[in-house]
């Protein structure tokens, strides 16, 4: 594997990687590691995802996938117009997605801005639903480290169990990998026990080589999850991007034994899309990742389509969209 070779070749980087706790990573050392990764051929990656998109998921396999997708959702609202009322309604939906069918599992988490975390916390008390909050000057990430850390601390203090941070894409594209790395390390520390999801904003990184490098950078810096997008930039999550990130977590686990999760977010609205992502997960990272611990889907309208398809699988007929609550 090229990364292993790159690390072996680069003594400085190897030392830095193995003693990364508290250490300082230089741009040059990180560059040697990240640019030593296997290249990604975009045509090939697109062809692979197109081929996997033809998998035909039927019957029990489909029902399992629909339930799994519900359990993996981070039910999200990230609008300037968000209010406590909106968040409370969404939390009710998260706990019990289908009032008519208690067999439908709750979603993995809700995802809100930091100032609304206390509202979600109160609403979700006693449930298994996690509270994720975007932080670090989401979505652009254009603020000082102090502001980003304060943002994070605010979310955690409010009760967030998961923090979705954005990386500094400007720094990444300028080759200042050390800066990106240090920020992730600092935010991770500010998170305390909260899970850290690192948003790469792949729509701004553009190339799949960059996606692979940013994935490794985030994992080396201690990310619990790597996440595709903020949802504010187009394109958001795409299957080739997810393929590259799933490949990265697979390789990282093989090398370190540590399994990092993947979250896809943005534009995933249909059950069909969700099932295709699960196929990607299953056939790239493997069955280990088919759990909300290691795979999440950031979405809002997706949930009702999953419920509708689930009802169709169970009853054989399509329901009226108004049979499912809009929250």
């Amino acid at each position, binding site marked *: *594997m*090229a990364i292993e070779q790159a690390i072996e070749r680069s003594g400085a980087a190897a030392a830095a*990687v*193995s*003693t*990364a*706790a508290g250490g300082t990573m230089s741009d040059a050392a990180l560059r040697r590691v990240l640019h030593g990764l*296997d290249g*990604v*051929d975009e*045509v*090939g*990656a697109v*062809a*692979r995802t197109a*081929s996997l998109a*033809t998998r*035909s*998921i*039927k*019957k029990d*396999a*489909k029902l*399992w*996938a629909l339930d*799994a997708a519900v*359990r993996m959702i981070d039910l999200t609202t990230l609008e300037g117009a968000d209010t406590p009322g909106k968040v409370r309604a969404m939390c009710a939906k998260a706990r019990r997605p289908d009032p008519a069918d208690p067999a439908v599992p*709750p979603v*993995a988490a809700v995802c809100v801005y930091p100032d609304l975390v206390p509202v979600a916390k109160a609403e979700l008390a006693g449930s*298994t639903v*996690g509270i994720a909050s975007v932080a670090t000057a989401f979505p652009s990430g254009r603020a000082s480290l102090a502001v980003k850390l304060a943002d994070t601390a605010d979310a955690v203090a409010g009760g967030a169990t998961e923090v979705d941070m954005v990386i500094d894409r400007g720094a990444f594209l300028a080759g200042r990998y050390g800066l990106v790395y240090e920020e992730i390390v600092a935010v*991770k520390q500010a998170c305390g*026990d909260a*899970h*850290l999801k690192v948003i790469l904003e792949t729509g701004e990184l553009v190339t799949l080589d960059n996606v692979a490098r940013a994935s490794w950078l985030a*994992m*080396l*810096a*201690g990310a*619990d999850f790597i996440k595709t997008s903020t949802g504010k930039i187009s394109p958001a999550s795409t299957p080739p991007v997810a393929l590259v990130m799933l*490949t990265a977590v*697979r390789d990282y*686990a*093989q*090398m*370190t*034994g*540590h*399994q990092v999760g993947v979250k896809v977010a943005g534009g995933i609205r249909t059950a069909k899309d969700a099932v295709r992502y*699960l196929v990607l997960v*299953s*056939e790239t*990272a*493997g*069955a*280990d990742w088919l*759990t*909300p*611990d*290691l795979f999440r889907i950031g979405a809002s309208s997706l949930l009702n389509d999953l419920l509708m398809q689930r009802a169709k699988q169970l009853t054989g007929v399509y329901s009226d969209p108004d049979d499912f609550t809009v929250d």
Partner: protein
Amino acid sequence: MAAKASGRAAPATAAPPADGQAPAPAVPAGMTAPPGRWDYAPAPESTEIVSIASEYGLFINGEFAPAQDGKQLITLNPATEAPLAKVAMAGPADVDRAVAAARTAYERTWGPMPGAERAKYLYRIARALQERAREFAVLESLDNGKPIRESRDTDIPLAAAHFFYYAGWADKLEYAGFGPGPRPLGVAGQVIPWNFPLLMAAWKLAPALAAGSTCVLKPAETTPLTALLLAEVCQQAGLPPGVVNVLTGAGETGAALVAHPGLDKVAFTGSTAVGKEISRAVAGTGKRLTLELGGKAANIVFDDAPVDQAVEGIVNGIFFNQGQVCCAGSRLLLQESAADAVLDRLRARLATLRLGDPLDKNTDIGAINSAEQLGRIRELSDSGDAQGAERWSPPCELPARGFWFPPTIFTGVSQSHRIAREEIFGPVLSVLTFRTPQEAVTKANNTPYGLSAGVWTEKGSRILWMSQRLRAGVVWANTFNRFDPASPFGGYGESGFGREGGRHGLAAYLDA
């Protein structure tokens, strides 16, 4: 496969997480129910769309008729060994009739017809192939054993694309670069193989018809059904009688056809041994000849290759259509410094391949086309064991009935082994290593064949350096088994001569 560490805790032997902190605590219980294995439920494509007759005649002069001597052969479903239909076996008298019909059509209707008019028929055939694509795909998978995913996504769309492509040339032959007023060649006898039955028929018929030639097509003994359905499409398109004739049968039918004095042109795709026989039969007769024969392609992976995509390319190169592809990447040349890493990922990827019912939409590896071909694959792979190469296949249960062979890799192969020299035409990959680009070229070219090659590297200059030196009709860079009607295809040496596809493909059917 990916590390099997359970949950989020790292195994004791593994390095600590890079941030030096303990792995984050598990997400609250209740949402962590282990998923178990997610097995795809069977998703078989329905066969209802196809109606297979119990008997098929020969397609001569626009009509179906039994062979004059009444002989028939039975075509099987190779996945189950169940008979599909009885098909007429054309004898010498039938060959006479078909060639005469093609000659008449050439002289009276098709040859004199303006190119723009001929194009209309080709477009009609192309559209009918698209409209009836599912029917063709199911029939192809039934008769050939290939996965429906491939017949649906590759064979049938490409066949239609060839007709569309050459339809566009029919009224532009003057501008094809063969001089002013190129004339059609006349009557072509075309013998095609069983690995891509409809696609090979399209490769042969489309350029011939565009050029104004007429055809007598002989599909393979084990896969006649889609060629017969294509004959039906020709009727549906109103193609004048005799322009396309389809003679089903076995080797004797093909031999009688290529030896027929009424032909102006013979085109053959198939084994090198038969190609040599045809070459001898045609020598000195004045017939034009093009041959597309075997191959033993080198798929060359450098240590700076995009490894995951290269692994996909290796899989596609040798397991597409169960490796029954003349341009299959059957020799994997790995740069020694990257060999172990690539092989690890290749083995992990092979473990995810799904072998089974060709009609299941999730099947990756289907059945071998015939008992005879299965025997040949077994014989050659046994020689790999005997000569000291190391065999590996993923855990893989083969169906009890039908002709099946698991995806197989041989490592420790050297140039002198039979499995490195002879075309296996099955899902069997021979892995060799090299140290330098020059050594890769030398090993790749060290074969009597020269049909295709693959080069995997992120270095653009090396791709050009390699492709100038590889003796192969097609060199794929960072991809494999890509086909397009606009791109010429053909070989060097014992892989044959002549080109099919593209502007070059017209030359075979023009008197230019």
